[in-house]
């Protein structure tokens, strides 16, 4: 049984993405006890699936390495992975959290040697690559995963594979009898950092994501650019593996749209400008078209936009693409009207990337506590939320930098609550 030592001076952080990690680490490094609860089997969240950041074009894993080192070394921090907060009761300074722990079927003895994966046969879609690759039924979520421990897919439990995995482990790290468990512990303040998920592109029917192989989402494209990703970093078409040199980005795919998300997802313009670099860097004869309504390069990011705009092989079309059709060779054809001066177009591309937006990963009904959200489902800063503070993109569509900024502030908000508890209890 997992046991968590906590008091009402403990800070509970829900979500182990970049915002949750930041809030947890900032609080823990200030000397506060923190319990970090993450649904996935590893920390890092969506950011761990990104190849590069805008505007520096540096690698998220770089900061992740530092954050993971901070996490490993900090005795104030308790990390629960494969865990979800299912209940939260009480008031600021005196909450009781209920956490459901899903079985990993692997204990701390795991050395990440990988012997279990070698013997397991069953393969599943790899969620780390958004299903674009396969992984074994016993797997290390990714090469930088923290905790650096394997996971057994629950779908192999009860099959021969599970037993094979167990037999292969020299360290007694596989425990097939692990059960789901529910634990309760006290905490004084809660940081809600449950983050975002990509909007389901299949719902954007005119773009045929569900019908055309060569229409992908920006998060998938990010995996394609990553040398560790499903294509080994090659920008190629899913349908035939052909080099994708003529690439279109469709902005506001699902954002600013009453059929989908009413809000602007803020990051997608910059993400596409960044991904344009991937294409241009990959091929000398690359051709990129960005279809947009407004390019939202905010404040200091303007020069990043200007740099891409100045590239000869990149064109910007002020137009929301009306629909995509596919020709016989699998080339997606974007159809629409360039609104600057009214020009109709029907442009074939090798690959179309949908700049799908961000939606909150937790819907209203899934919050374990009554919380003030706006109509888009983001948590609003509101006194009625008591000792629960949103951090990062649970509060709005934010980029990494602003998420971390916001999460750092959220850590202080939580510290204020537990410090008050400490004062009262002396």
């Amino acid at each position, binding site marked *: 049984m997992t046991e968590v030592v906590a008091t009402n001076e403990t800070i509970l952080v829900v979500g182990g993405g970049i915002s949750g990690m930041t809030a947890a680490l900032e609080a823990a490094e200030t000397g506060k006890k923190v319990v970090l609860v993450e649904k996935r089997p590893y920390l890092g969240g969506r950011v761990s699936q990104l190849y590069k950041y805008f505007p520096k074009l540096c690698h998220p894993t770089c900061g992740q390495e530092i954050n993971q080192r901070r996490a490993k070394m900090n005795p104030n921090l308790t990390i629960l992975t494969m865990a979800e907060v299912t209940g939260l009761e009480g008031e600021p300074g005196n909450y009781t959290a209920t956490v459901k722990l899903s079985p990993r079927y692997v204990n701390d003895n795991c050395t990440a040697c990988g012997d279990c994966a070698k013997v397991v046969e069953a393969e599943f879609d790899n969620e780390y690559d958004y299903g674009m690759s396969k992984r074994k039924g016993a797997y290390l979520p990714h090469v930088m995963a923290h905790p650096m421990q394997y996971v057994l897919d629950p779908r192999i439990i009860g099959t021969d594979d599970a037993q094979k995995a167990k037999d292969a482990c020299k360290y007694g790290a596989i425990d097939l009898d692990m059960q789901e468990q529910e634990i309760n512990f006290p905490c004084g303040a809660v940081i809600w950092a449950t983050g975002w998920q990509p909007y389901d592109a299949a719902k954007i029917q005119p773009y045929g994501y569900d019908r055309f192989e060569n229409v992908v989402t920006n998060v998938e494209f990010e995996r394609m650019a990553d040398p560790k990703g499903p294509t080994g970093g090659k920008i190629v078409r899913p349908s035939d593996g052909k080099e994708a040199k003529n690439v279109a980005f469709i902005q506001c795919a699902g954002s*600013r749209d009453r059929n989908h998300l009413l809000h602007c997802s803020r990051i997608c313009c910059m993400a596409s400008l960044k991904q344009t670099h991937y294409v241009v860097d990959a091929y000398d004869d690359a051709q990129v078209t960005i279809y947009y*309504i407004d390019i939202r390069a905010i404040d200091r990011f303007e020069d990043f936009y200007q740099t891409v705009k100045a590239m000869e092989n990149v064109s910007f079309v002020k137009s929301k693409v*009306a629909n995509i059709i596919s020709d016989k060779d699998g080339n997606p054809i974007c159809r*629409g009207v360039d609104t600057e001066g009214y020009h*109709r177009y029907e442009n074939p591309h090798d690959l179309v990337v949908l700049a799908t937006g961000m939606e909150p990963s937790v819907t209203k009904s899934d919050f374990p506590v009554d919380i003030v959200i706006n109509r888009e489902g983001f948590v609003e800063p509101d006194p009625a939320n008591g000792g629960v503070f949103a951090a990062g993109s649970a509060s709005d569509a934010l980029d990494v930098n602003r998420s971390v900024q916001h999460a750092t502030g959220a850590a202080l908000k939580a510290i204020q609550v537990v410090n008050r508890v400490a004062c009262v209890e002396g």
Partner: protein
Amino acid sequence: MSDMNTAMVEKYRNDFLKEVEANVEEGQWVKMCMQCGVCSGSCPLGNAWAHPPQEIFMMIRAGKRDEVLKSDSMWMCTSCYNCIVRCPRELPITHIMHGLATYSKRLGLAPKTQPTSQFSEIFWNNMMKRGRVNELKLGLSLYFKDGFGQGIKNALANQKLGMSMMKAKRMSPAEFFGGHGIKDASGLQKMIKKAEEIELAKLKANT
């Protein structure tokens, strides 16, 4: 309603936009357009539009009253509703196009020889007579809208079509003599008259 035609409109002022809001079906939505162009790109007859819907919305905002109301663009609407379902700002574009057409026709600004405009009028009159459409007469009126000579030419061009329709019992010469209709045609006509009165009274109040 010629007084309405002389309304002074200043460029990039909201006069015309407000006129559209008041008098055009669903006109209050025009201001909500964010110029993404998805309507223009979605139109099946798009290439026949001198000014596609999103541009018309911009023209309304820019006060281009004559260019909009005299345009034949909105008469190209096939009522396919692609624009409506795709519009990210929920503008009922099909209806606005219909509304602009109605309004321009009422003001007498609609292009006189625009075929859809003419057809639409023929259709309405045909329907109003007996409460139901008489397809045969509708067809014939359409053929002869540009005079007798052209009518004969049109009829001949479609002769083969007509013959096969009759053969399939999907067109009946009997329709020429009376044909289908409702019992309470006069009730219907009174009702429509009343509806028109109500609508025109509002239009007048707005000018």
